């Protein structure tokens, strides 16, 4: 893992000291809220419905055990003993007090972390495949490049006042687990005809009020040109992007209004103009970063204990069937720890659970943890022989829910339980859906199904790319939930289609139940997933299930 050098350390400490002074001046009245707001946002501090919220960056979702323990310590000392993992691989604290925030930032700096650029119109935390460095289908570990982009974008003098926020995601595999096509810039590692690794550069994707699938700006970019090329893109956007209308300011609108060809031409021109300025130092830096991400010292040992435990314990077998993914090293598996126990808040972990995960990672996981954009925690490198012990420890901490990729593994934004922008609640809907399908005991039968819930059109809950998406709105002073179907956030990214009129808070869970049980009757066989059935059959049969004729009058 990357460890802060002297420069990083001094920079982060200086920023903490600056913010401490700004908070003092806000409290003594020398700064008004209007003056203070952009300063606090630069440090990830929001003011929400019931309290402040601090968003801490987890760069490309990677944590070591001591960082995870520090997050637990912060939760206990300055918050309410828990943290919320987000769809951008970050962690949010929902109850910090303003005068404690500088101390929290200092505590983060102690473990090489910060909350910089987790808000505001800057380049945000760079996200990456949560299976990075471990997945069997990987071309290259995307994290060194993500770290290079993080260093380049942090405090970049040209890009601190962009027209709007800017999000970059990096994927290193054929299978896209980083939703690269829904980002301002998506970097996908690919190989050209000669087999040389490079990047496919996607631009102008995004969800929110105008969802767009990103377009390929460059099919193959040589590795060493990435930084200059990204700088060219952001630099073109910085001038061309609209500042007259907040809702038309993201690069997806810039690309849409100017056309892909114009963007390509402008970016290539800018790229030619600036590339000579990149004299190769970035590549030297990248080499040293790559060394920090060297694979762990994998061990070779018998897997017999794993197979025996699978035979002996059906609960362990069910968990290992759903929560494991293929690892590149022989004898190893990737463990997804579900932070989605039925009825709990998606993505919330208690400080005790954080410490348990840190301990397990240290003892059995080569000291590595990841946060996924699906709001789960990943142990990327666990030997199969250790899985029974890992499972037992997770079970003890109430972390052994076997539901990864299933109907109860729901993404949900904080919604109107916390967020000042929300138009409806998301969390209670997620809790009720998960609880209901747990009662029905059919989620393993249903198979892969991604439900994603957002509490407003900004789409932090990625509802547009959910196989079933739920969008909470305020309709004449009442919470109302719209359903979209057929969304997909992988390499075949698709924006879901709205099924019809929305449902009330009381009717949305029965509607989802009707939809999912209806799918079981529609599918060809148990192997046809919800998304495949939808793609084969189209909207109509699902619409008929959602809006039976006799209910039509009540559905609006």
């Amino acid at each position, binding site marked *: 893992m990357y460890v802060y050098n002297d420069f990083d350390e001094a920079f982060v400490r200086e920023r903490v000291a600056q913010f401490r002074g700004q908070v003092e001046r*806000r*409290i*003594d*009245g020398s700064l*008004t*809220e209007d003056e203070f707001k952009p300063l606090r946002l630069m440090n990830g501090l929001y*003011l*929400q*419905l*019931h*309290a*402040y919220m601090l968003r801490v960056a987890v760069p490309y979702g990677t944590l070591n055990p001591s960082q995870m323990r520090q997050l637990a310590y912060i939760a206990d000392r300055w918050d*309410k003993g828990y943290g919320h993992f987000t769809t951008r691989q970050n962690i949010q604290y*929902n*109850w910090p*007090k*303003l*005068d404690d925030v500088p101390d929290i930032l200092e505590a983060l700096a102690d473990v090489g972390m910060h909350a910089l650029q987790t808000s505001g119109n800057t380049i945000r935390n760079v996200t990456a495949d949560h299976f990075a460095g471990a997945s069997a289908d990987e071309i290259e570990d995307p994290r060194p490049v993500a770290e290079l982009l993080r260093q380049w974008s942090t405090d970049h003098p040209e890009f601190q006042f962009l027209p709007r926020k800017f999000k970059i995601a990096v994927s290193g595999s054929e299978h896209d687990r980083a939703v690269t096509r829904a980002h301002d810039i998506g970097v996908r590692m690919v190989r050209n005809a000669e087999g040389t690794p490079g990047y496919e550069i996607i631009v102008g994707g995004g969800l929110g009020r105008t969802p767009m699938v990103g377009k390929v700006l460059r099919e193959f970019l040589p590795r060493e040109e990435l930084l200059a090329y990204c700088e060219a893109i952001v630099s073109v956007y910085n001038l061309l992007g609209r500042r007259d209308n907040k809702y038309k300011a993201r690069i997806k609108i810039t690309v849409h209004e100017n056309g892909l060809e114009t963007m390509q031409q402008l970016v290539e021109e800018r790229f030619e103009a600036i590339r000579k300025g990149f004299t190769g130092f970035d590549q030297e830096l990248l080499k040293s970063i790559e060394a920090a991400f060297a694979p762990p010292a994998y061990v070779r040992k018998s897997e017999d204990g794993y197979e025996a435990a699978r035979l002996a314990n059906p609960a362990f077998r069910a968990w290992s069937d759903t929560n494991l993914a293929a690892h590149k090293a022989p004898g190893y598996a990737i463990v997804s720890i579900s932070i989605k126990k039925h009825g709990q*808040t998606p993505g*919330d972990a208690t400080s005790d659970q954080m410490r348990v995960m840190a301990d397990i990672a240290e003892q059995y996981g080569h000291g590595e943890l990841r946060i996924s954009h699906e709001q789960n925690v990943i142990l990327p490198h666990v030997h199969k022989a250790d899985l029974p012990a890992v499972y037992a420890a997770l079970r003890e901490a109430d972390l052994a829910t076997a539901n990864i990729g299933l109907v109860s593994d729901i993404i949900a934004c904080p919604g*109107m*339980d*916390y967020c000042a922008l929300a138009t409806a*609640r998301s*969390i*209670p809907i997620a*809790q009720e859906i998960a609880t209901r399908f747990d009662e029905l005991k059919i989620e393993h039968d249903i198979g892969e199904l991604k439900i994603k819930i957002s509490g407003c059109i900004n789409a932090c809950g990625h509802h547009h790319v959910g196989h079933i998406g739920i969008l909470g709105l*305020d309709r004449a*002073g*009442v*919470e109302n939930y719209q359903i979209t179907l057929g969304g997909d956030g992988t390499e075949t990214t698709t924006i879901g289609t709205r099924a019809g009129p929305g449902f009330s808070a009381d009717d949305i869970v029965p509607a989802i139940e009707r939809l999912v049980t209806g799918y079981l009757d529609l599918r060809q066989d148990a192997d046809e997933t919800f998304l495949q059935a939808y793609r084969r059959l189209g909207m109509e049969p699902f619409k008929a299930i959602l809006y039976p004729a006799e209910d039509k009058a009540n559905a609006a």
Partner: protein
Amino acid sequence: MARAFTPKVITANALLEGDAVWFTADDRWTPHMSEAEFITDEAHADLRLLEAQARQSEIAGAYLADAKEGPNGPEPTHFREEFRTRGPSNYAHGKQVDNASRT
């Protein structure tokens, strides 16, 4: 034609805790909406909002929120403002903890 004025309260977030607070007739910030000044006159509302916003070292983000008269004082008319009087629905955190001990 201008829309008819509907009754309002002035609300904000407390500067240090970020907790929802309401402005009272005697210029205090209260954590209980029922103690807020119930404002039925538009000109008075605008004036009081200016006075509330001037108290920068106590609160952030003061605004006028719709309210109705209840048996114990002003009550919210919209679910968002109702949530602000009690806290989130997924945990017993925020105001609902104190509200429970008050009743």
